[in-house]
């Protein structure tokens, strides 16, 4: 069952609980009004509009067909069945093509590090899998089911941090959810089943046409994503990426890549044929030359 996040910007009061929860669950230093970087996976920008201040939240869109995952040559970025787009530290070689490819400019890099990681929101994917029954090794690190150290974006989880992470990613109903949605006091950020959230979003804009602009941002963008926004002001005015189109971006490259086998076979055969023909011609020419030479020698 794929998950998604729905953010109703009309409900948001700009308290910043989501950004703080995000920093806490990843054990980043707490910063107010953060900008998106390797230690802040979500931001909240206050924007003056005619209807008063609107808080534009931004985070990874968790695309249905992510450009970053298609771009990554080692497949470190992956669209999971859960809906989250995750990053595997053990695969990444640091080419940063994901950062170039992302239509929303989400992946960030640890520029100051000597062993840098690509960091971005993972919808608390690994955090949500963390449970209290997992074993702990001698050095106090949590182990996963296969006995390896539990890995969140290349960081191992200490036993003492486990409960904090679980608490931050468990909502009032006892269900696991992203830290930002758990922290949101206004229920502006909702975590849940993707289909159900789409239904909820459609219901809201249908029932309240005066409140909302008639658009669910994230539903059609780049072929569909897993993070949706509702707003009372046009998304262009909020600085959302509105020109990303509705086509799956990986299709642009796949259209070329899928032709490669044909190109290789066709060009290979063609080059082989040209080689054979011109080589043969050369041989014939040499042979005729030899015959000519022999004749002239005989005459002499």
């Amino acid at each position: 069952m794929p998950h998604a996040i729905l953010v109703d910007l009309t409900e948001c009061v700009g308290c910043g609980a989501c950004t703080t929860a995000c920093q806490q669950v990843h054990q980043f230093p707490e910063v107010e009004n953060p900008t998106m970087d390797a230690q802040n996976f979500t931001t909240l920008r206050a924007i003056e509009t005619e209807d008063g201040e609107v808080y534009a939240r931004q985070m990874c869109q968790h695309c249905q067909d992510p450009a970053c995952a298609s771009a990554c040559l080692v497949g470190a970025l992956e669209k999971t069945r859960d809906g989250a787009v995750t990053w595997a530290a053990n695969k990444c070689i640091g080419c940063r093509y994901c950062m170039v490819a992302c239509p929303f400019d989400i992946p960030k890099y640890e520029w100051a590090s000597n062993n840098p990681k690509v960091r971005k929101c993972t919808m608390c994917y690994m955090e949500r899998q963390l449970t209290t029954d997992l074993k702990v090794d001698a050095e106090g690190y949590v182990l996963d089911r296969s006995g390896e150290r539990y890995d969140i974006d290349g960081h191992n989880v200490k036993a003492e941090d486990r409960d904090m992470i679980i608490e931050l990613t468990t909502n009032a109903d006892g269900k696991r959810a992203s830290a930002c949605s758990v922290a949101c006091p206004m229920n502006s950020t909702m975590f849940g089943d993707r289909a159900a959230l789409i239904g909820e979003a459609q219901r809201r804009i249908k029932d309240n046409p005066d409140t909302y602009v008639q658009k669910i941002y994230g539903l059609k963008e780049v072929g569909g994503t897993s993070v949706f926004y509702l707003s009372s002001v046009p998304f262009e005015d909020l600085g959302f990426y509105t020109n990303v189109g509705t086509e799956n971006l990986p299709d642009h490259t796949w259209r070329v890549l899928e032709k490669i086998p044909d190109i290789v076979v066709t060009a290979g055969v063609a080059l082989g044929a040209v080689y054979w023909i011109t080589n043969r011609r050369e041989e014939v020419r040499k042979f005729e030359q030899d015959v000519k030479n022999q004749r002239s020698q005989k005459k002499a």
Partner: protein
Amino acid sequence: MKQFLSRITFWKATAGLFLLGGLVTTVIRFGWGLGASTNLTDETPWGLWIGFDVVTGVGLAAGGFTLAGIVHVFHIKRFEPVVRPAILTAFLGYCLVIVGLLFDLGRPWSIWHALIYQNPHSVLFEVAMCVMIYTSVLALEFSPVVLERFRLQKALKVIKYVTPVLIILGILLSMLHQSSLGSLYLIVPQKMHPYWYSPMLPVFFFISAVAVGLGMTVVESYLSARAFQKTLETPLLRDLSKMMIGVLLVYFTMRGIDLVRRDALGFLFDGSFETMMLYLEVSLMLIIPLILFNLRNWGRSRQGMFFSAFSVVLGFMTNRLNVTMTSLEAYYRENFGVSYFPGIGELMVTISIVTLGFVLFGLAVKYLPIFPDHEEETVLRLDTKPENSGPHAMHARPVPGLNRH
């Protein structure tokens, strides 16, 4: 010879300075990371090292497959003397591209991951595989030069036997990755300026690589002639230039049609920076070479051919940097209010890599049979002072042709 020495000392000093800067940056890069050594940021993750060292570098090394194809597949044997310098350039070029890549990758020690964690949907994966295999193929294509030098006849025979397969494989690999460097940018249609984003990017990248491969061969040949008195025949260079111009005409016709079809011509008179850069690209890559080539005396002279080929090389660089940098500048400015300009360290490393290329090329030309005039000669000394047999004394001293400089 005198002039040559003064020139070489100036350039040697300059090169030394650049290499020193490169060395310092290398220490910073691997000691303190990319942030400390470059102007790269989260907003502009790819800079000069990808745009020039990799994307442009691979293109400039395209002469290897172009000429190998002309001579060994199409059997136009006239161009045989050009193949070796071209393959040498390609081989050195690819090695240096890999060096540049090791600087740019955040975790260069895991570069081999491309072999085991394969993502066939990634253009970059295809480029990585092709570049890796093609560099090995180039090493084999180049090996006869080394084998000849050390007279290893048996190995030579084996290589000669598999050469046709190697050459065809090399062309296929080149077709794939030269074009795929363009495909890399297909995934960001909304970020790039319409001048340079086109679904045809892979085709354009391939055709322009063929043209610049020919151009680079002419340029190298001229420079080697100046530095080492080793060169190719003028008629041969002229034929290469002719082919280059032909390929460029095809290339720009296709690009023109593409611009019209995508309605991108509307910007041509907006006076923007992008438009100026497009004009620069077209002037350097097409108009200047065409004019030079058709000038009566220039087009036929070595200098004329050098300058027209050099202009194409410059134009090619402009094109690759326009695709990788210029076309994204407006996007970065509007979305983040930032612009990228390489840091001094990035420049130093890039210049050092290019310098390294020149040095290695020079050494190879000096010590390996690269250019055809590797002939021996006798130098006869005419002593003005009589030695033992009266006024007509002289003695011959054989000197191998190599010691001429």
